[in-house]
């Protein structure tokens, strides 16, 4: 049976899947990237500045928290965010960007800080994947 013929009998109304996603950068470079992303229209995605960690964990209503960090950057906040999310059963993901330009040692440093607090880690050579990943998570 062709895809079109088969699809005729599928219920066409997709289930409601509006999800609240909070995106927070962990370092200055990522903050610029996240700020640029926030200029577009996103449904259900809240972009926070790096300084908003306290606000984030105080009012943790997101379905997913995405931490963005540049390879080699310090990611101390990951532990604070991760612990709060773990307590409240909010899944976390970490996007490590600009890995293509970073040394293995630099990537190691950042990974050591984000790995314990992320259910999913994506190491991307450039920034462009961040937008697509966020679009897919919505």
């Amino acid at each position, binding site marked *: 049976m062709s*895809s079109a013929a088969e699809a005729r009998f599928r219920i066409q109304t997709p289930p409601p899947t509006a999800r609240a996603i909070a995106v927070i950068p962990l370092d200055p470079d990522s903050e610029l990237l996240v700020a640029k992303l926030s200029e577009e229209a996103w449904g259900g995605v809240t972009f926070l500045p790096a300084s908003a960690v306290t606000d984030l964990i105080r009012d943790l209503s997101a379905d997913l928290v995405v931490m963005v960090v540049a390879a080699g950057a310090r990611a101390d906040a990951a532990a604070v965010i991760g612990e709060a999310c773990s307590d409240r059963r909010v899944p976390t*993901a970490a996007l490590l960007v600009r890995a293509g330009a970073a040394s293995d040692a630099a990537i190691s440093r950042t990974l050591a800080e984000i790995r314990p607090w992320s259910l*999913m*880690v*994506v*190491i*991307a050579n450039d920034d462009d994947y961040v937008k697509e990943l966020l679009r897919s*998570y919505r």
Partner: protein
Amino acid sequence: MLKKEQNDLLTQTGPGTPMGRFYRSYWIPALLAEELPENDCPPVRVKLLSERMIAFRDTEGRYGLMDEFCPHRGVSLWFGRNEECGLRCPYHGWKFDVTGQCVDIPSDPTNSGFASKVRLQSYPLVARGGVLWTYMGPPEQQPPLPEWEFAMVPASQSYSSKRLQECNWLQAMEGGIDSSHVSFLHRGDINTDPLFKGARGNQYNLGDLRPVFEVVESAGGLYIGARRNAENGQYYWRITQYVMPSFTMIAPRGNHSVHGHFWIPIDDENCWAWSFDYHPIRELTEVELAAMRAGKGVHARVEPVTYRPVANKDNDYLMDRAAQKAGRTYSGVEGIAMQDASLQESMGPIVDRTKETLVSTDSGIIMARQRLLRAVKALVDDGVVPPGVDLDHQRVRSAAVVLPPEQPFKDGAREAMIARPGVAPASV
């Protein structure tokens, strides 16, 4: 989630489509060598990338893959007589060699030489590693022959199979890089399948049912790492290789053979699922081979000639609800291959990716799609040779390793993920 036009772009592989052009950049598996077992054996119908062709092996052992239909009146050359270095149409005797060149038109009494002006579209067909490979792109852009390790080791160290999968290639391939389903769908098989059981690494699987995933770009595609807790604060990594467009290689277990797949479009709603098992440094044992032939591991029992799985949609994949309830299988379907295929076929002939609800553990799939979309665009817009054509992208291995917690696995397993003859695979 993809937009409709993105889904169409990735799933349509017929002539003239962008993804079709992408697939035509590579050598792809076309037949098992066993399908053309001897010189002048019967021809075999082949459909790949929505093109119908006929494959044959001539009197001198040369392989041919060409348009299925005689250019005279459109008859299928499957009825052809394979004799004296050519395939002769039984309708009026037109004969073609393995390059598709017409070499005889008996009904032309003047022997005018018209035959020399008649040529069927044909593609090279080459044997390597028990598989017959073809390249369907422009002849002047033909890449070097493939060098996937399973096809380069001695025949006694490798086994390949194929099965028909009745869905689009992409949803099948996505299952191959989706590590997160293993803990559910294949839960019953890790410690019972003869090709997996007994490995020390299995204890990490069973001791930590919530792996964490890490996706890293590679030159040829992606590495997908699944991380579990090991002793002394270390991590046990199982690293899958994904090389475009559809090669995957799964991390080994213990001293078992290593396995992987290709998914090759037949048309937009069907594909061939190719599976290979090999060991880089030893022969496969008779016990292992018997298990593979019996459909264990990543292989499946198939019907002769059609290679359609014995468990298929027409018999509900031989569903066993008692086994499902008893926990012997998670879905009620037996065998890793059909556990995957049954669910992937149930998504529909071409799954509608505009209606998905992806989560963060789907990041490997999301990244693979984006890598493919970019690579297709680069090929179509700028003629950039796709990742995976370069032989260095093919000389790769998967790996299972234990590493310190802060170490990137791309760094810690770097050497292990390169195929080196005579070097044992990295396995736990």
